[in-house]
């Protein structure tokens, strides 16, 4: 009887240890969801005095669209021009860009025009506000969803 009781108790301890071993295993790892990285596009060209140029792009989702007039150089590679230009965003209209938001800005490396836009097709437009005295090479950077 005593031997049986001892065996029972021993079995009980083993059961407890077994439960602890299997119950406290590693949790199943969950894969974190990674938000989609924004897309960066650039458009470059040579802008004539009193001229304009635009570039169409498509956003995959609603989100922030940042447009930067990054460079304006009459005689590449330099010196860089600080001329204030028109920079706008809108929607393509036939062979032009119908601007809905715009800003007058000098070139820089932080976005001068930031808008929250729904998914769709848009255009960015650069245009001379009268400050250009000679044609100039430009680069506009667009970051969008």
């Amino acid at each position, binding site marked *: 009887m*005593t031997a049986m*009781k*001892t065996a*029972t*108790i021993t079995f*009980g*301890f083993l*059961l*407890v240890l077994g*439960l*602890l071993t299997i*119950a*406290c295993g590693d949790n199943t790892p969950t894969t974190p969801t990674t938000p989609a990285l924004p897309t*960066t596009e*650039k*458009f*470059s060209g040579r802008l004539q005095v009193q001229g304009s140029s635009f570039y169409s792009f498509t956003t995959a989702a609603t989100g922030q669209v*940042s447009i*930067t007039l*990054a*460079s304006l*150089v009459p005689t*590449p*590679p*330099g*010196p*860089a021009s600080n001329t204030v230009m028109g920079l706008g965003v809108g929607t393509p209209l036939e062979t032009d860009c119908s601007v809905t938001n715009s800003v007058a800005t000098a*070139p*820089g*490396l*932080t*976005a001068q025009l930031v808008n929250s836009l729904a998914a769709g097709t848009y255009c960015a437009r650069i245009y001379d506000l009268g400050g250009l005295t000679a044609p100039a*090479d*430009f*680069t506009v*950077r667009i*970051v969008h969803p």
Partner: protein
Amino acid sequence: MRVAQYLRAHTFFTWPALVLLAFAVLSTGCGSDSTTTPAPSTTTAQTETLHGIMAPTGQAVRTFLANQAGTVTVLLADAQPTVTLGLGVGVRGSTGADCRFTQTVNTAPGTTAQLSVSVDPGTYCAGAYDIGTVGQPGVTVTVTVTHP
């Protein structure tokens, strides 16, 4: 053997007690993990150096990645032979072939940054270009860029 005698002497080590003990241990031992607050991200400024030989009418440019918004500084640290050069910072054009400068300055080599500009996160370029002062066979330049 002594353990068995001890257990026999203490009646609380019975089957029900063992089951209760098991549940108690499981309840307390497998509680939810405590949440850890992520450490705030700290980004130190990075310094990159361009060292090259620039031909007459040419440019020597390095591309770099700013991981976050901040200030970029550009230093023309050395030019051999010593000449005044154009120094610029900007972005690569749509073809990626050339560096389209946003800010430029004509400068001799120095020890403090000659250019400083605020940037958004992104890819940029900086370097030196000939402003008509570079003769044959060229000039050896060292440009240092510090960025976030």
